[in-house]
Structures are given as structure tokens and as C-alpha cells.
């Protein structure tokens, strides 16, 4: 049954991610993206990674996409304000996209099909085990990534404050 | 500018102290005030069932009075209509026939007498103007209705009930 659920949800994820690209209205794109993230959450649950599922739910669906929506709602999205793209840019974009597809296909061909994954430890995705892994063997990368986030935060604050200091 | 009355007070707006910025003391104070009102008597009067007592000089619905023998006092002199600032009163006078002596006190009486309650401002000037003490604003609140024509009160609604024998 799990396989059928997977195929169903996987079809939905592909469908929704295609809709993200094809939707004319940016707000609709964001809403489809939210649905896509929701199907990802289901995937995580199917993989028995409950913590990741919930974090994906909270952080991506609940916070980041809200901010996306927030920004898009503030933009005045008209056809007139959309800058007209020159044919040169269009051709360049087509070539770049084609290159990306070729690279992806090449890399997928190189990767041999792996055996069906069977979890040796079914509790691997639980909070406790994940926490022990993160704060044990992977302590250094974990702390480094937090430093990276801190730097990004400081950068954002400085960017936001810049105009203010010049005025004063 | 210098204040002449010496009543002017300069309000000083100080920055909030730490205690004020915590909000919590003020919030608990406010909460205690509102909760104390939970135990106070409510001021509501349930109107149609319970009626608040009117003050003695309250002016409500008009009534056309009868004298001690049960005859209508009004003589259709028109002073009330004349005094009415809202032009709410109209009447048609008629002469009393001999067999109607027990109905009307004066020789002339009001055959129709109408007050438009939508025009009336309940000032009480008709009451003041009446030489025969025939009209008083001593009734209840004028009830609501759906049609404008229903607010024109005729003699059927205005005249006092006949005296009990």
C-alpha cells in the first residue's frame, strides 16, 4: 500500500511543481508551491522521517511561503510593469535551460539504480535519534551552518539599516 | 503665550518607566477593574416586560381628556394646532346637536382630531395653549409601526376611555 501512496503523492508533486511554472499568476504559483511542499511532507512521513516532515511543514509551508506570499501581495503585478525581454535573452535562457537538462540526464544515467531502500533502524527519523546524530558526529557542520545563518541574519539587518544611518 | 486665567496646565509626557513598559501591572489593574463589574448589578431594564418609571414631567403620547361627567372637553378652538411648532395637529370642528349634550361639554366640538406622531416633537406647547385643559401629554412612549399612515393618530386613539359608571 505504501508504494501506491508513494506513486500517487509523487504524481501530485510533479503535477503541482509543473503548475508552479505554468501558472500565469505569481500568487497562484506560490500557492502551488505550497501544495508541492505539502506533498514533500507526505513523502517524509512515508520515509518514516517524522521530524523532517514536521519541520518541512512548519518552516517551508508555514513560514517561508508566508513570506513569499507576503512579498508578492505587496508587488503591483501588472502586464505593463513586466519588463519586455529582448529576443537575445530568450535565446540565452533557452540554451541555458537546455544545458541544464542535458547535464541532469547525463548525471542520472551515470548513477546506477540503487536497490530498494530498507531502513535498518526504523526509528532513524525520530527526533531523539536525529538530535543525537546532529549533536554527536555532525556537531561541527551543524554549528558551522548555524554560524552561516547568523552571518546571513547580520547581513540582512545591515542591509535594512543602511539608509537610516545615511540620513542621520 | 501667557495664560491669563491661570488655569492652563502643561502636561508633561515623560518616557515610560520600566514598570510601565512591562505592561503587566497596568494589565492586571485593568483586568481587576473589569472583573469587579462582573459582580455589579446590571443597568439594563428589560423594556417590553419591565418599564422604567418616567419622571413626573415626562411628555409622552397625547390624550384628549374628558370632564367629570365623561364629556369631551375639547372645543376645537384650534389653539393647539396654532401653537404647534411642528404643525402636527389638524382638526375639523362641528356644532353640537341638542341630543349630543352628554357627549361634548362645549357647543362646538372636534369632529376629527389628528396628530401626526412622526411630526410631533413632544414639546408640550399644545398642552400649554389649551384653554380647556383638554390635551395632556401623559401617555407612554409612542409605539413603533410599519407604515407612515399608521402614525397619524385620530380620535379613536387619542380620546380617553369613557368613565366607568
Amino acid at each position: 500500500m505504501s508504494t501506491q501512496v508513494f506513486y500517487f503523492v509523487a504524481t501530485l508533486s510533479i503535477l503541482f511543481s509543473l503548475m508552479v511554472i505554468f501558472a500565469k499568476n505569481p500568487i497562484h504559483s506560490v500557492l502551488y508551491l505550497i501544495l508541492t511542499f505539502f506533498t514533500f511532507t507526505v513523502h517524509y512521513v512515508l520515509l518514516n522521517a517524522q521530524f523532517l516532515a514536521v519541520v518541512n511543514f512548519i518552516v517551508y509551508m508555514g513560514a517561508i511561503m508566508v513570506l513569499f506570499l507576503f512579498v508578492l501581495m505587496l508587488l503591483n503585478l501588472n502586464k505593463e510593469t513586466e519588463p519586455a525581454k529582448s529576443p537575445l535573452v530568450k535565446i540565452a535562457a533557452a540554451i541555458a535551460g537546455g544545458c541544464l537538462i542535458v547535464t541532469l540526464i547525463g548525471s542520472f544515467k551515470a548513477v546506477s539504480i540503487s536497490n530498494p531502500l530498507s531502513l535498518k533502524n526504523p526509528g532513524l527519523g525520530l527526533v531523539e535519534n536525529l538530535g543525537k546524530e546532529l549533536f554527536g558526529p555532525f556537531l561541527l557542520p551543524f554549528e558551522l551552518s548555524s554560524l552561516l545563518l547568523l552571518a546571513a541574519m547580520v547581513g540582512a539587518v545591515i542591509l535594512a539599516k543602511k539608509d537610516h544611518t545615511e540620513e542621520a | 503665550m501667557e495664560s491669563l486665567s491661570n488655569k492652563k496646565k502643561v502636561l508633561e509626557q515623560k518616557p515610560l518607566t520600566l514598570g510601565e513598559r512591562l505592561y503587566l501591572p497596568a494589565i492586571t489593574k485593568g483586568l481587576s477593574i473589569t472583573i469587579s463589574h462582573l459582580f455589579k448589578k446590571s443597568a439594563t431594564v428589560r423594556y417590553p416586560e419591565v418599564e422604567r418609571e418616567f419622571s413626573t414631567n415626562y411628555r409622552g403620547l397625547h390624550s384628549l381628556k374628558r370632564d367629570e361627567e365623561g364629556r369631551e372637553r375639547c372645543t376645537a378652538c384650534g389653539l393647539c394646532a396654532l401653537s404647534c411648532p411642528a404643525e402636527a395637529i389638524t382638526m375639523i370642528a362641528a356644532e353640537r346637536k341638542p341630543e349630543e349634550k352628554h357627549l361634548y361639554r362645549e357647543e362646538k366640538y372636534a369632529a376629527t382630531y389628528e396628530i401626526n406622531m412622526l411630526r410631533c416633537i413632544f414639546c408640550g406647547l399644545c398642552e400649554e395653549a389649551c384653554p380647556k385643559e383638554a390635551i395632556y401629554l401623559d401617555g407612554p412612549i409612542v409605539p413603533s409601526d410599519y407604515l407612515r399612515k399608521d402614525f397619524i393618530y385620530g380620535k379613536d386613539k387619542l380620546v380617553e376611555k369613557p368613565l366607568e359608571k
Partner: protein
Amino acid sequence: MDAAFVIEKFILVAVIFGVSLLIAMYSTYAERKVAAFLQDRLGPDRAGPFGILQPLADGVKMFMKEEIVPATSNKWLFMVGPGLAMLTACIASAVIPWGSPIAIGDRVIPLQVTDINVGVLYIFGVVSLGVYGVMIGGWASNNKYSLLSAIRAASQNISYEIAMGLSIIALLLMTNTLSLKEIVEQQHGWHWNVLYQPVGFLIFMICAFAETNRAPFDLPECETELIGGYHTEYSSMKLGFYLFAEYINMFISSAVMATLYWGGYNYPGMDYVAAHLGATWAPLIGTGVFFLKIFAFIFFFMWVRWTIPRFRYDQLMNLGWKALIPLAIANIIVTGVVIAIIEKF
């Protein structure tokens, strides 16, 4: 997965759904009554004795009213908005333990729809989704006031979610589990978490007020500035759904506060009661106690609404970012240090 299990869960879900709707219905009545009593008035008293049929009258009115969909709105999303608000409000109740397992005959039925081991995070996730109903509805109305309200709701929810999450972290340091059932069971008798985490509870409660858009943080629907806020353009039962969702949210957040901090269905002397009444009736009393706590919180929500004026927008943001978040972080540090010291000695 036997049939009895499915039936039992189905009944439980139906009962919880029904009870949430009933409580939401009567919260509207209670709100008006509480407001009236706090202001020395009587409140609605015409429909039925003491006006207890008022919610029915309101419901009938909502259904009978004309349904207006603005011509320039986004029709599809305009319909999705209220539905989403209602959905997110209802699904949060799935992980709340409503009572200790109840024995009927020789079957033991847990009074919790599902005990997932990330229950706290699940509630948190559902709460964070709640803002979509408001945002989508506000945007789809194609009205400036609605849009402003949607934007306010989004920024308010995001800001207070952070402080809320941080205040829970301090609690989780103590409980060592994310399962709501285990958290409740650790608070046996009177060992309620609020005694150990008063600051955390205070922060959580303030954030709960903000997340449910209740006064004093009801900026998204502040009449003086935004007419009706995000539901300006809504009428009929769609408006009813938004109002209903707000009351269900209030009920759920009261339940969560009671579960996390005020001992859930635990009460002093519960062992004595359990020994004397047996495994069928004692859990029911526990559930009753739990609902008493919930009602107390709902009353508190209303009491605050009719006491405190609305915050200004900058005050709201200052409170969230400059007061609650640092306080929550300090709370985590103090809790961590105390736990480390206790474990050491």
C-alpha cells in the same frame, strides 16, 4: 487494524469535531454574555431562556443571508480562503489528549485521536498554516483593506510564532519529549508545568493571543482602520466560517495551553478518585477537569478582550521582537543551566 479500532477512532473524531463546533457556537454566545456582564449589561436574552438559542438564531441568519462574491475578486481563492481557515482550525485537535485511556468493558480506548511523537511540532505546524486562510481570503477579495489586513496577519503570525516556538523549547528541555500524551502524563497530580515554567507560559499565552488574532492583538480585523479587515468583502456563511474559525482557534489554543502548562486532565487527588471510581468513570472526571481548564482559558480570552485596548502596529512588533523573543531566549538559557546543575548534583 481491526474494525473496532476504526469505528472507535471514527467515533472519537466525530465527537471531537462535534464538540469543537458546539463550543465554538457557544463561544459566540459566551463572548456576548461576558462582554455584557463586564459592562453591567445583560447581553442576548431573547432567544430561549437566557438567550441560549441565540447561536442557532445567528447560524440561521448566516445561512439565509445573501451570498455576495465581488465581481473583481478571484472567485476560486475567494471560496478557498474561509474553507482553509476552518480546516486548519479543526485539524489541530487531532493530537490533543482529551483524557486518560478509558476502559469500557475490557477494551481500553485512548481519548486521543493519534499520539504522534512530534505532537507539539504538529500543533505548531498547523497553527502556522492558519494564516493562509486569512491571507488568501484577504488577497482574493481584491480590496485594499482586506489586503492590508492579510499582510498584517502574515507579519504578526510569523513574528509571534518565533517567540512561541522559543517558549516551547524551554518546556521541551524539561519534558524531554515532543509527545503531548507523555507531556501530560509527566504532570501527574499537581506537578503542572506552569509551576516550573511561569515565564514560558506567559510568553506562550501572549503569543497564543496574537496567533488567534484576539484582542489586544486583533489588528487584522481592526474596524477603525480596516473596516472588517480580511473579511470585509465576505458575507453569509463564508463570513460565518471565518468567525467560527477564530472561535475554534481560541478553543484549541486554550486546550493546548491547558495541556502543555496546566496539567491537561490531571488534578490533585486524581489517584484517590481513580482508586475509588474505577477505570471507566475516573477518566471521564479527568476529561471534565480538562474542559473546566479550557473554559477558564476561554473566559480569560474574553475577559482580556473586553479590558485591554488594541495595540498599535509598532507596539505589536516591538513587543514581539524586542521583548518576547529575548525573554524567551533568556528563559531557555536559565532553564538549561538549572537542568544542567540539577543533573550534576
